[in-house]
Structures are given as C-alpha cells and as structure tokens.
C-alpha cells in the first residue's frame, strides 16, 4: 500500500490547476455569472482540446487515464466552479456513446426521477442526452433536439447552472449496448463527489483568507475562537471526504467490475463530500458575515453549486441506504 499520489498524478494535477487558472480565473467566472450562465462554447472547446472531458477515453483524442486520475482532475475542476455538465460529458466520452473518440456535451438523467421535477442542465447546448433507466437496467441515448420541445426553461438557484424542466413522455432513444449502468452511475457519483471536495477545499481557503484579513474589535476575526472552530470543522469534514474520494477512485480503478466494496466506498465518498461542500460553503458564508450575503462575494456560488451537486447522481438518502445495507451484510456474517 502506498496511498500517496504518484509523480504522474501530481503533474497531472498541477497541469490542470494551471490550465484552469489561466482559462477560468475570477474575472471569467464573474463574467459567466453576469451572462446568466449559458455554456461558454469557446471555453468549452478549449478545455475539450486540452482533454478535460476525455480523460478516460481511449483513441486519438482520449488521454486513456483511469478513474483515480479523473477524480483528481475533477477535484480541481470542482474548485474552479467551471459551469456545464462536466461529469456527464466525461462519462459520455469515456464510454464512447457517440462512437469512439467523441467528447460530446452530454447530460445524464436517471429514471424514474427522484422527488421533484425532472430537470436537465444546459439542454439546448447538449449534443447527447443519456437516460439511465434503473428499472430496465439499461442506458439509452436520446437526441436533445427531440427533447427540447418537451421542456421549458426554469429559473435555477445556481446562476451558473441553467435548468430546463422536462414534462411529458421522453422519446425512446437508442439503447447503448455494452454499457453497465450501475458502473456508470457509480463513476458519475464519484466524479461529482470529487468536484464537491474541490469546492469544499475552496470554501476552506476562502474562509481562512477572509478571517485573516477582516478586522473587528481591533483584531482579525480569525483570532476569535468561534470563528476558528467554524474553520477547523470545515477542514475536519474536508479531509476525510477527500481521502474517501481518492480511495473509492482507486477501488474503481482495479478493473471494469463494480465490486460491492467499491460501490460502498463510492457511496460513502459522495455522502461525506456533499456534506463537506454544502456545510463548508454555509460555514464560509457565516465567516464572511454580511459581505458573504452579497451577490458580489463568491460564497453564494459555492453554496449554490454544492446544492446542485448534492442532487447530481446518487444523493444522500441513496448513499446512506447503500452503506447501511453493506454494514448489515458485514455485521451478519
């Protein structure tokens, strides 16, 4: 066992970090917010060219990496708050849904839906809509253009995640053979968890920076214990979530088969990462006080995106039930 990142993984991470910093700095982030969050096609194309969505794809444009590397990259992507259906697009490329080498803008829906309306992100921009039918245990590919007439734009909570609500009967689409829906669901859950970890890390950084610089009562607020304890708890949630994501990614890398152990660790990683991100962003808001409540501050973007990702792929209830089942199986052995 050597859990540390390999040299290649470190380089990959710093490469992606540099890429994102160069192409998606704060100015561009705020410009996207002002524009109301339509998919920035030019940016997407640049990132696609850099291989961001074809990390695991094989073939001429793919990077041929594994889930562990993809998870590391999505930690960085999550921390950058890059908008768009990133995880589903990576999955679509990794599983070659439009044929080998393709890296479409793709979203993924699971049926039957959970509570609430059926929402799709960035619908008009999509090149592929994947539908994971849990009852039939199959993955289908729909043409987004055929779904668009069934949908209407709705006002979403996250200014960077435009949403469309779909009503009526979805077209049947075409069945994707050879895809393992459970595996794809687990991969999407893992990459979303990784994104949340990146977001949670950004929330810790932002809270600590602000707490160092903002003064009240003649000293930085970060010197007050109440503020210190908020920050310490943020880190206390982040660190276990981060290693849980990395461990789950390693287990998924072991082979194409989805073992019960891997399933459970993916569920645990998502559960902890959602918590680290959503509660972390909230605590970050608290540390920022009234400033945090303004549109100007980025805290809102962290919190709202954390909420979106909480509802992407497996949610808290599903993950906790999955884990409880595993605990019972272990305990009854």
């Amino acid at each position, binding site marked *: 066992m050597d859990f540390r990142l390999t040299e290649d993984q470190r380089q990959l991470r710093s490469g992606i970090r540099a890429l994102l910093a160069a192409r998606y700095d704060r100015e561009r982030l705020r410009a996207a917010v002002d524009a109301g969050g339509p998919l920035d096609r030019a940016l997407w194309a640049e990132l696609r060219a850099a291989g961001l969505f074809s990390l695991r794809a094989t073939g001429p444009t793919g990077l041929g990496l594994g889930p562990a590397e993809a998870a590391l990259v999505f930690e960085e992507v999550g921390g950058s708050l890059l908008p768009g259906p990133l995880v589903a697009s990576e999955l679509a490329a990794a599983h070659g849904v439009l044929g080998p080498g393709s890296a479409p803008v793709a979203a993924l829906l699971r049926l039957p839906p959970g509570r609430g309306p059926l929402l799709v992100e960035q619908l008009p921009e999509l090149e592929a809509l994947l539908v994971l039918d849990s009852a039939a245990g199959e993955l289908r590919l729909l043409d987004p253009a055929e779904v668009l007439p069934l949908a209407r734009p709705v006002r979403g909570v996250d200014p960077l995640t435009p949403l469309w609500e779909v009503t009526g009967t979805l077209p049947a689409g075409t069945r994707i053979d050879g895809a393992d829906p459970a595996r794809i669901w687990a991969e999407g859950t893992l990459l979303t968890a990784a994104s949340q970890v990146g977001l949670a890390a950004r929330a810790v950084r932002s809270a600590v920076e602000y707490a160092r610089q903002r003064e009240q009562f003649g000293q930085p607020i970060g010197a007050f214990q109440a503020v210190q304890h908020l920050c310490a708890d943020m880190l206390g949630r982040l660190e276990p979530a981060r290693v849980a994501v990395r*461990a789950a990614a390693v287990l998924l890398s072991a082979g194409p088969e989805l073992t019960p152990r891997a399933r459970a660790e993916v569920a645990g990683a998502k559960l902890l990462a959602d918590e680290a991100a959503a509660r972390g962003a909230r605590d970050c808001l608290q540390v920022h006080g009234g400033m945090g409540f303004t549109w100007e501050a980025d805290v809102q973007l962290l919190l709202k995106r954390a909420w979106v990702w909480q509802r992407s792929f497996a949610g808290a209830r599903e993950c906790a039930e999955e*884990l409880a089942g595993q605990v019972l199986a272990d305990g009854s052995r």
Partner: protein
Amino acid sequence: MDLSDTAAEAAFRRGLRDWLGKTLPELPPPPDPDDWPGRRAYDTSWQRRLYDAGYAGVHWPVEAGGSGATPAEHLIYLEETERAGAPYVGANFVGLLHAGPTIAAEGSAEQRRRYLPPILSGREVWCQGFSEPGAGSDLAALRTRAVRDGDAYVVSGSKIWTSHAEVADWCELLVRTDPEAPRHRGISWLILPMDAPGVTVRPLRTLAGTAEFAELFLDEVRIPVGNRVGAENDGWRVTMVTLSFERGTAFASEVLAGRRALGALAARAARDGAWNDGELRRRIGLLAAEFTALWRLVQWNVSEAGAGGVPGAGASVFKLRFSEARQRLYDLAAEVLGSGALLLPDQADQADRSDPAEPAWTAQRLQGLSYTIAAGTSQIQRNIVAQRVLGLPRPGRSGAGGG
C-alpha cells in the same frame, strides 16, 4: 495511489492471520473490567505472546526492539488483529503507543536499551503523568516542581486523571525544572519509577463506575537525572512529540473497532425490528462512511509521513472526527436498545448477548464520553487545527478567548 498489498505485505498479512487463527482460541477469557491487576496480567501476557511471535511493536524501529515493519504493515497488523477480535492493547496503551515511541524518537541510546524491550515484551507497564488539577487543557501551567539535588531531581506535586496508574511500573512525568523561565521553557520530561518512595496513588472513580484512572501524589520523590528524556527545560518540545503520537496513531485501531461495532449494531437492529426505521438506517450508513473515511485518512497520513515519521498537527483533524464519530455510534446504539439503554452495563449486557461479538453498549457509551475530553478536548483540537494547520492568528488579549 495504491491501496492493495504488495507481495511482502500480503505475506505479512497471511502469516499474521495464520498465527492469530492458532493463538486466539488458546486465550483465557478476559478478566472483569474493574479488576485492574487481572487486566494487567491479561494484557501483558497477550503482549508477551505477540513478542515471542515477533509481532510486538511491529512499527517500532529495529534498534528500538521492533521488527522494523513498514508503516503499511503496521496498519495491516491493526486490521488483522481487529478483524480477528484479538485483545485490545489495554494496560500497555501508554507504553506501547506513546511513551515508547517518544523514547525511541527522543531518548538516549541508553534509555532506549533500558526501557523499550520491557514494553515490547509486556514486562513493564507505563502511565502518563501530564495533567494536574490546575493544568488540563492548559498543560503548560503545570506546577509539579523538580529541584536538582546532585544527580537527582527532587520532585513534589500532584498529577490527576492518570490512567492505569495503579498497575504501572513507570510514568512519563512532566515537571517544572525552571520556575523563572517562561511557562513553556521551564518544563522537563522525566521517567518516574512508580515504586519510588514518596509516590502515592489514589484511585478515582469514573462516571462509568470504574477505577480507570487515579490521582498521583509526589512528595519529595528522587528521580535520577539520567531519567530525563531530552534536555533540561526542553520538555515541552518532547511533550509535543508524545502528544502527536497520542493523537495521531494511538487511536487508529479504534476506528476499526468502531466499524466492527457498527456491524454488530446493524445485526442487532435487524433482529429486533429497529432496522425498519429508515432514519436509523441512514444514520448507520453515514457512520459507516465516516469510519471508512477515517481509516482511509490513517492510511493517507501514514503514506505521507513515511517510515518513522512523527504525525503532524494534522493528527488533530483525525482525533476530532474520530472521537465524535465514536460517540455518535454509542448514541445510535442507545436508540436501538431503547429503554434497555437505561440499564447499567452488566444488566444491559445480559439483555441480549446472542451475538458474542457484540460490545457491551452501555459500558462503551459511558466510557466513550471521555473521547472528546481525554488526550486533549475537542475544543482544544479545534484550536490546534485552526492555528497550527490553517494558520489563523492566535487570539489577542481583548476577549478572543482561549488558546
């Protein structure tokens, strides 16, 4: 990133698993939890078996008497002993998990030769004399005085909450050797023989009803200068080494124990119908995620620290999360037990012992209340994380409070 066993690790795991499979059935039943001499005898005889088989202090360096196993093998040792239900370190806790490692890291060659082998072979038991009535969280306020007299320190004062003091041979003792120096600069780390004239141990009853710890009174006790670990007045630095072992790796096996107890709890909930409560199931699921992640955190920290590394301030993140997770486990168990959770341990244990692997929940719940206090309270861990890991400013004078 690789979580699988190397060939050497797999061989180590197999060997240990075989040995445990042979050895554990030969063990006598454990003694009554309140019978400290009985517990000492039991814990040290287990230690002796480990020693004879070459599994004592696997994580200790060879020159300190360990087998020089890699940190990863140490974790395998913890996984396999926990999985097999082997005895807990118990009375050997302080010696094996933090006094020993401190002496290995900071002691002289002579001290390593003298003190480490008996810890490993279970001949000698240690306790920890750090806290005083006026110095708990604020450990640097300690007042126990040591005055140099020839080749000895003459020590007077008192210590409190000293776990296992009744059955210990040695005590890692913090004393003030320079009362004039700033608080952190006048402290020394000494090895106190518990049978020295002037040492009095008075057991304290805990809220669990047991005599887990004691008060220690020191009345002009002579301790040879050669028993000092580290330089005179440099004891605070040595203490930080001890505490990082205590907070970092010493509790690692408890994470595994927590995960196993959770499995037993689920099985019990399934037997008596509590399992149908979705909220309860989800809380169990969340705790499973936490224990797994905490173990992954241990593996991560060990990988990052490498061989022989002293765990850093990041150990406080682990200590904080682990102690709160353990307490949530026991609160959850109380919900499964229902009114049975109000029975004192021995009766509650009788209530349903169809699963021999099931812990004595009420006893553990009571004992578990100490997790957020002992080895530094959760508030103190948060202070450490904020100031030393995140680098937030130290509290000023005007009302920020606490440090």
